[in-house]
């Protein structure tokens, strides 16, 4: 089972975990991205996330379907937030439930790695004296 969402409100981690829990599963791995207060030694004030929503949902579904093909995973959830986020807030939650923990760990890591590579979502770092779209320039 797959649950994919892009939300402009705070992500509810407990609800994400509740959704993946099931009596057939023995292990859940959850990845939670959080906004760091610094990047490459520079103080970060806020992050802004923008998504090309229809395509981002599309690409996240592809990743989730891929995971269900590759690993014996029961449930996978990917929630990504958009808009302005403060330090410590959560842009992304990925939760994977499987009968055995190895599959949960591997699938969860694959999901965040692939998401960062292929899903059309963009992050702008807001500093004290300027802002920059991450990874835009070489």
């Amino acid at each position, binding site marked *: 089972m797959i649950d994919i969402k892009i939300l402009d409100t705070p992500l509810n981690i407990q609800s994400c975990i509740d959704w993946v829990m099931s009596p057939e599963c023995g292990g859940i791995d959850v990845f939670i*991205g959080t906004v760091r207060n610094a990047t490459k030694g520079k103080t970060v004030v806020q992050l802004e*996330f*923008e*998504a*090309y929503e*229809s*395509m*981002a949902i*599309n690409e996240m579904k592809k990743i989730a379907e891929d995971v269900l093909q590759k690993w014996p995973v029961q449930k996978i959830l990917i929630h*990504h937030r958009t808009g302005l986020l403060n330090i410590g807030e959560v*842009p*992304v939650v990925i939760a994977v439930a499987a009968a055995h923990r190895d599959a949960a760990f591997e699938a969860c890591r694959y999901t*965040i790695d692939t*998401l*960062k*590579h*292929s*899903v*059309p*979502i*963009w*992050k*702008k770092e807001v500093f004290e004296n300027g802002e920059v*779209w*991450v*990874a*835009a*320039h*070489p």
Partner: protein
Amino acid sequence: MKINVLAFGIVKDIFGSASIETELNGAPTVEELKSTLEEKYPRLKQLASYMVAVNNEYAQQQQVIETGDEIAIIPPVSGG
């Protein structure tokens, strides 16, 4: 043929807008669209890379754009 092009992230800054309209001849390919845009917006060439999406899918250079397709410029992604 008139093409509406959606912009995200830094491309929105480059276009100065969340979408622009551009005019292309005949049945243009993705490659031709890119050339035309790069001529009009040279800052596109300074990006680490960028892709074109057609109907919510990453498109190849030779893909032909058809009337009604949803076209978007995808600069390097950085979600997560």
